[in-house]
Every structure is written in C-alpha cells, then in structure tokens.
C-alpha cells in the first residue's frame, strides 16, 4: 500500500500515550498567518457589508483605513493560503472512501465513528472545507481586484464591478460559513486543536479519526524513518 497521504514531517513517537506529529512548524505558522488574515478580512468585510457592523471599522482605524487595508490583507491571505494549498492539496485529493464517509455524515454527527470507513490524513468533511476554501479564495481575490478601485478602476466597467461586488459578498458569506464549520469541528473534536498549535495529536486521536493515515504512518515507509530510532 502506498503511503499516499502521509505528508512530510508526519511521524509517530511511541509512548504513553503515543504522540503523532501532524503538522510541521512551517505548516502551523502558515496556517495561523492565513487564519489571522481570514478573521481580519471577515471583520473588516462585514463592517463594509452590514451597516450594523460598521462600528467594527474602528478596529482598523476608521472607515477609510478599513477600505484601504482590507484588500491588502486579502493579498497576504491569498499568498499565505497558496502556501497551505501547496502543502495540503495532495492529501486532500478525493478518495473512494470519501463518498461513503460523506453519505454516512449523520454517524459523524452522532459520534458513531465505528460506522464510518477508515480515512486518511483528511476526512471528506475536511476535504470539502479545503476545496471550498481554495475555490472561494480564488473567487474572492478575482472579484476583489475588480472592486479595488484605487488601483484597478479603469480596467473594468461599472456593470462588471456591480457583478463583482455581488459575487464577492456571496463568496464572503459562504467562506464565513465554511470557516464556522472548520472552527466548530476543531472545538468539538477534542484533541484536534493541538495539531495546529503544538503540531501533535495523540495516537488515540489518530486511531479514532484518521486510522488509515495512522496505520500507514506506523506500517508504511515514512513511519520506518520516523519511529525507527
């Protein structure tokens, strides 16, 4: 069996409990830069979309600063996310078991994971989040540039800008919903948060949630190097 979704840096450390390296320091820093940008973009974007939230512009130094800084944060996020994409895209390719997993989503919600197929480094839910984020960020940066009047005003017509601002807001609402799913899953599934902070999860967590990945890690080639000491 090929270790298709064991990534660089994934490793198992025997002990009580078993510790599993899930994210490299680089991936974690990359993730948190992206996360910070996304939160700042959501706050400033909501402030410019909903009059009720306009007061949030104060966090950025007022309305003008919010208008000026929002697109630049978007640019940082775009490149930061591009880094995450390059790191994670391979392990997020759709696999046979993902369809089954998604079809049995209700067992996920009822904590009956024994009724689900074993999954690799990412389950179908995480893959949906990953690909949604990827597509939405491309939509957001493209439509964002169209409405970034300070630098790109002459390049498009007013009608195109109207479409862009509408699509931008729809994509933004969608990505916030995806983000809620992402954050909720990290809170709900105990032991997950540590993966993105310290980079490690327990063996039990890996066994419970990503058994295929864990088994590969222990039995496959990559795990040989990591646990061979």
């Amino acid at each position: 069996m090929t270790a298709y979704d064991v990534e660089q840096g994934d490793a198992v450390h025997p002990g009580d409990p078993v510790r599993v390296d899930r994210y490299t320091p680089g991936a974690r820093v990359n993730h948190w830069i992206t996360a910070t940008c996304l939160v700042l973009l959501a706050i400033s974007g909501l402030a410019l979309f909903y009059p009720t939230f306009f007061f949030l512009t104060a966090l950025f130094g007022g309305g003008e600063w919010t208008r000026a800084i929002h697109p630049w944060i978007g640019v940082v996020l775009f490149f930061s996310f591009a880094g995450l994409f390059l790191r994670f895209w391979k392990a997020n390719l759709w696999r046979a078991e993902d369809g089954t997993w998604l079809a049995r989503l209700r067992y996920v919600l009822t904590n009956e994971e024994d009724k689900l197929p074993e999954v690799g480094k990412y389950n179908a839910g995480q893959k949906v989040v990953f690909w949604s984020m990827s597509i939405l960020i491309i939509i957001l940066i493209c439509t964002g540039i169209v409405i970034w009047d300070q630098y790109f005003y002459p390049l498009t017509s007013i009608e195109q800008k109207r479409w862009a601002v509408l699509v931008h807001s729809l994509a933004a609402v969608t990505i916030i919903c995806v983000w809620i799913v992402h954050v909720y899953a990290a809170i709900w599934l105990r032991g997950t948060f540590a993966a993105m902070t310290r980079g490690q999860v327990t063996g039990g967590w890996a066994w419970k949630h990503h058994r295929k990945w864990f088994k590969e890690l222990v039995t496959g080639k990559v795990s040989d190097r990591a646990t061979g000491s």
Partner: protein
Amino acid sequence: MAFEFELPPAPNTDVKPMFGEADLVRRSASSVPPPARKLTEMAKLIDVSKCIGCKACQVACLEWNDRTERIGFNYGVYDNPVDLTPESFTVMRFTEWVNPETQNLEWLIRKDGCMHCEDPGCLKACPSPGAIVQYSNGIVDFDHEKCIGCGYCIKGCPFDIPRISQVDHKAYKCTLCSDRVAVGQGPACARTCPTHAIVFGTKEEMKQHATDRIKDLQSRGYKNAGLYDPPGVGGTHVMYVLQHADKPEIYAELPKDPRISPIVVFWKGLTKYAGMAAMGAFAAVGVLHYLVSGPNTVKPRDEEDAERLVGGRRS
C-alpha cells in the same frame, strides 16, 4: 508706525441655513427619524434646446465649489474635460446628431451631472453611515467627513456620476449647491447661465416651466419634445427638457429608463439578509449540536488501540 485698521463687519451674520440635519429623509447605512416638516421639493431644470454650450456653468461650478480642474487634454471634441472628474461636478456633453426625418445636423448639448434622484442608488449602496444624505427638498448630498472612498456609490448610481478623487480618496459629485440653496440662493450654474437654459425653483414650478417650453418646442416642429423626469428612480430633482424626449440616449447616452441596477438591489437586499441568516444558522447549528451531542472525545481505549498498533509493530 503701527497699522491701525478695522475689519469690515462680516456680511450676513444673521443668515441661518433654511434646512439641515432635521430635514433628512434618507441617510446612508443608517436610519433617520421622520422629519417634523416637509420642505418644498426643489429642482433644477436644464433646457437642452436653449443651451449654447458656453460652459459658463462649468466655470461657475468650479468657482463656487472652490475646485481647480487640471489643465486637460484636447481629444478633438468640444467636451472639456472629456468626462466628469472629482473636480468638475458638471460637464457639457456635445453630440452631433443627424435627424433622420429632416436630415438636419442637430448639435445636442447636455449638461451632465448628478440628477438628485428621488430614489438615490448611491445612497442605497453606501456603507458608511451618513456619508450620503437626502433632504426632504430632494437634494442628495455627500458628507466628505464620513466618506470612506470605497466607490460603492459609483456602483449604485444609474447615471455614472460620482468620481473618487485620487488625492483624498473621497467621492465627489454635484451638491445642487445645497449650501447656496440653504440660504435661499439658486445653484451657481443656474445663476450664471446666460440663456436661462438652467433654471432653478420648486419642482412644481419647474415642471410648469417645462410644460410651457415643451409647447413652444412642439409648435416649432419638435413633436417629441418632452420632460426627462425618469420614474424608474422616482423622478429626479434635476430634469431636462429634451427636443427628442423619445430618444434620450442620443443625448450622450442619457439612459432611457434609468433605475437602480437589479444587481445592486440584490446585493444590498436579499444577499444581506440571506447572508446573515446563513451565517447565523451555521453558528446556531454548531452551538445546538454541541449542546445536544457534547464534545467528541478520544477514549482511553483508543489510546490503548494506538499503543497496541505501534507497540505491536515494534515487538
């Protein structure tokens, strides 16, 4: 030797603006209490048939509003500047049109600028509370202190009027000389127009005046002469008398049936509410799910299984 002189008394110290904050009927990204009184609706009437294209209105506008237009570029046409700018709130747009019925060359000169819509798209699109306001006399005004320069007003406007300054990144357009109207004066352009092609008064008076003008034009063979007061935006407080009111588009693309773009209406309407509902629903389902099912925890048995797998391999 010291100079000794007395400053002349400031003129008109007792002049009080005749309308203000209390007369707002609309305020961008916020609401206003219904005003206690209703001002008489005012309007500017531009009689295109009387315009001689002298651009005195452009000069008066720059002068009164204390704007300085850059030295421009001659594009080979009379339009100068060639488009509205953050400085020039009004421009004359010249069209040479051959009337297919008479084969006459007609020189159509339309003074372009803010139409002061009854239903202003700019105000609808504006995200900054109070940056765009509408008074009960019909004047739509920008408050530059509150403008954040996002350019949403440009997307909202059905007439392509507001322009963002690259200097201070704020939106500019005709104010209908709200500061002059507030002290009983007409707009600078109307005051300066040598042929009285631009006149200013109550909307009723202006409509009456237009009716007389249209009658005159019709008696001179302009059978389609008419008033441009487009109902799609609830009527405007800048109106045109057109020789060919059935074809407003020949006047440098004056829209035939202007209305706030449905895209803007959807963006500022349903998208906003549906978006809030969607985000709220996702968050609510998350909270509910947590309350009902509790956290998903890794059990000691899972850890044992993991140790067995790792240990089993090692032994």
